[in-house]
C-alpha cells in the first residue's frame, strides 16, 4: 500500500468517524431536547393556572373552573392503596426469589412469569381488574378495586427492585453471618436486608411514580368522570389526576374552555413524578455517601 493511499484511507476513516459521531451527538441532543420541549411546554402553559385554589378546590362549571382537589386526593388514595398491597408482597417475593428459591427451574419460571407480568399492557390489567375485582368480587368501581389493579401492575417492579438490591449484596456478608451460627431468616433480617434496603427504598419510590401516572388500569375500576366530593370509604369511587387530564383533554363538556385546567392538571401530574424522581435520586446519593463513610 502506497503512502499516498494510506494517507487517503486514514483521512476517510477520520471523516466517517466524524460524521457518525456528529450524527449520534445530534440525535442524543434531539432526544434530550424532546424532553425539555415537553416539560417546558407544559410548565409554561400550566404555571399560570396553578394556584392554591386550583389545588384545594372542587371543579366547577363543567370542569372549566375551580380546582382539581378531588383528583389529587383520589390519586393519593390510589397510591396508598396500591402500595399497601404491592410493597409487602413484592418485597417478600423478591426475598423468596433471591434468598430462598433454590436456583433452577423454579426460579427461572418465577422470573419468567414476573417478566411476563411486567410486560402486560396496562389496559389488560384494566380489563382484568374490572372482571375480577369490580364484577366477580363485587367491589364495584371503588378505591379498593383500583388499588388492587394498580398494585398488581406494580408488583413486578417491586419484585425486580428488591431482587436487584439483594443480588448486589456481597455473598461474603451472608457467609459471614452463617459462619456465626445465624439462621437463614436471621441473616436476611439482620444482615442482608439492612444492606439492601437503601436500594429497595429507591426502587419503591420510583414505582410510586409509575402508579401515579397510570390511566388505563383505573379507567374501569375506580376513576370517576366527575365527582366533586371526597371518598368516605374504600368502596367509593374517586377522581384521579391522569384520568381527569384525559377527560379534560378529550371529552369535557367544553374542551376549549377547559384547556387551561388541562395544562394545570398535566403540570401537577408531572410535578409529582419529578418530585418522586428527585427524592429517589437524592436518597440514592445520600445512601451511597453513607456507605462510603462506613
Amino acid at each position: 500500500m502506497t503512502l499516498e493511499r494510506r494517507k487517503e484511507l486514514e483521512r476517510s476513516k477520520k471523516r466517517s468517524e466524524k460524521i457518525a459521531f456528529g450524527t449520534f451527538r445530534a440525535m442524543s441532543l434531539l432526544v434530550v431536547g424532546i424532553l425539555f420541549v415537553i416539560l417546558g411546554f407544559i410548565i409554561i402553559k400550566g404555571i399560570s393556572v396553578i394556584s392554591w385554589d386550583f389545588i384545594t378546590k372542587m371543579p366547577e362549571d363543567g370542569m372549566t373552573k375551580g380546582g382539581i382537589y378531588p383528583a389529587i386526593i383520589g390519586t393519593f388514595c390510589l397510591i396508598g392503596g396500591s402500595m399497601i398491597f404491592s410493597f409487602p408482597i413484592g418485597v417478600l417475593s423478591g426475598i423468596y426469589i433471591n434468598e430462598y428459591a433454590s436456583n433452577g427451574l423454579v426460579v427461572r419460571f418465577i422470573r419468567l412469569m414476573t417478566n411476563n407480568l411486567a410486560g402486560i399492557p396496562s389496559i389488560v390489567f384494566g380489563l382484568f381488574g374490572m372482571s375480577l375485582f369490580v364484577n366477580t368480587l363485587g367491589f364495584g368501581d371503588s378505591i379498593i378495586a383500583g388499588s388492587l389493579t394498580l398494585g398488581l401492575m406494580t408488583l413486578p417492579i417491586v419484585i425486580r427492585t428488591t431482587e436487584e438490591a439483594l443480588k448486589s449484596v456481597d455473598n461474603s456478608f451472608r457467609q459471614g453471618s452463617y459462619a456465626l451460627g445465624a439462621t437463614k431468616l436471621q441473616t436476611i433480617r439482620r444482615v442482608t436486608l439492612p444492606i439492601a434496603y437503601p436500594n429497595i427504598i429507591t426502587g419503591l419510590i420510583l414505582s410510586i411514580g409509575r402508579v401515579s401516572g397510570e390511566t388505563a388500569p383505573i379507567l374501569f375500576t375506580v376513576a370517576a368522570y366527575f365527582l366533586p366530593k371526597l371518598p368516605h370509604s374504600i368502596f367509593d369511587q374517586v377522581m384521579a389526576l391522569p384520568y381527569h387530564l384525559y377527560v379534560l383533554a378529550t371529552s369535557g363538556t367544553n374542551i376549549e374552555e377547559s384547556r387551561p385546567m388541562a395544562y394545570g392538571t398535566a403540570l401537577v401530574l408531572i410535578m409529582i413524578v419529578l418530585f418522586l424522581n428527585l427524592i429517589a435520586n437524592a436518597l440514592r446519593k445520600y445512601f451511597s455517601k453513607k456507605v462510603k463513610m462506613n
Partner: protein
Amino acid sequence: MAKPFHKKLFEKIIEGILTLSGSITSLAVILIVIFLFKEGLGLFNQSPIAKGFVLVVNKNNPVNTLDAKSIKNIFDHEITNWKKVGGERDTIILFYLDDINSIYTEEQIGQNLENLPTLFSNLTDSISGIIAFIPKTYINSDFKGKVITTDNIKVSKFLSGKEWFPTAEPAAQVGILPLILGTLWVSIGAILLSLPLGLAVSIYLAEIAHPRVRNTFKPIIELLAGIPSVVYGFFGLVVIVPLIQSVFNLPVGETALAGSIILAIMALPTIITIAEDSIRTTPRSMKEASLALGASRWQTIYKIVIPYSISGITAAAILGIGRAIGETMAVLMVTGNAASIPHSFLEPVRTIPATIAAELGESSQGGMHYQALFILGSILFVITLIVNLTVEYISSKQKLAKR
C-alpha cells in the same frame, strides 16, 4: 445450643409466607389468563343479531340463513336483490319496527300494541321480498313468515373481518382486522422512528460521550420514562396533532403518524436503557484490542461493539415494539380512532388498546360487545407474551454465548 422449638416454627411459617409471595406473579398471570378468556370466549357462542331481536322473511323465500356481513350490507342498501344472497331475483324490501307506524294506523295496532304480532305476520306473508328486523316477543306460534337463522361469530371471521361496528344493528360487525392493522401501523411507525434514534443515543452514551455528559443525560432519559402516558397523549393532542394537520394540510391531525411519533418518544427510554446496558457489556479489553490494531473508534463500534451486543439490541427493539403495541392512553388521544383499514400514515387509525379503553365503558357486561373487547384484551396479552418470551429466549442465548 439448639434453637427453641417456637423459633423454628416461626422460621417455618415465615418461609411459607415467602414461598407464597414468590408464587404471586405466576398466580397473577394465570388468573389474568383465566378471567380474560372466561369473559371473552363466550363471544364465539353469540349470534351477531342484537339480543331479543330476530330477522324474518316471507316463507316462500328460499334464503334460510344469512351471515352478519350480508345482513349489514342488506340493511345498508348495498345489497338490494335477494339473488345476491342466494335467493330468487326479487328486490329486497327492508322493514324496521318503526316503519309500522307509517303503514298502519294507531287503531289498527291497538292501544297496547296487542295487534302487532298479527300485523307482522300478515306483512311478511304479503310482501315476497321483505326482510323485517323485529323484537322476538312479537313472533307468535301462528307466525306466517320465516325466521332467518344466523351463524355464530367464527374465529376466522373475527380475525379477518374488515369491519368493526360492534354496536351496529341489526347485525354487529366484529372484524378486528382494522384494529390489528391499526396497531401494527402505529407500532411499526413508532419503532421505525425510535429505533435509529434510540440506538444512536445508546451508542453515544455508552461509547462516545464523556462520562459527565452521560451522567447528565441518563437521569434525563429516565425522567422521560417516568412521564405518565396521558401527559404524552395530552402533549401530542395539543402540539403534534395541530402540527401534523398544518404541515400536511390535512382535514384532521389525528393520524397514525401522530400516534407513531408519540409512541416513538415513549419507547425511547426502554430502547436506550436496554441497548446501552447491552453495549456496555462489551469487554473493555476487546475494544482496546481493536483500537490497538489501528481501528478508529467508529470502526471499533460498528465492527466489534455492535456485533457483540447485537442480541441485547434486538431485545431492546422487540421490547420497544411490545411497549408500543400495549400503550393505550397516548394513542387513544392522538390517533383519531377510526376503525377502518389504514392506507397511509396520514389517516386516522384505531389500535387494539385504544378500542378497549374507548368502548368498554359503553358496552353492557356480558354482552357481545363486552366479550369482543375481552377477546381483544386476550389477543393483546398473547402478543405481549410472545414478545416477552422472544426477549427471554434471545437474552438466554446471549448469556450462553458470552458465558
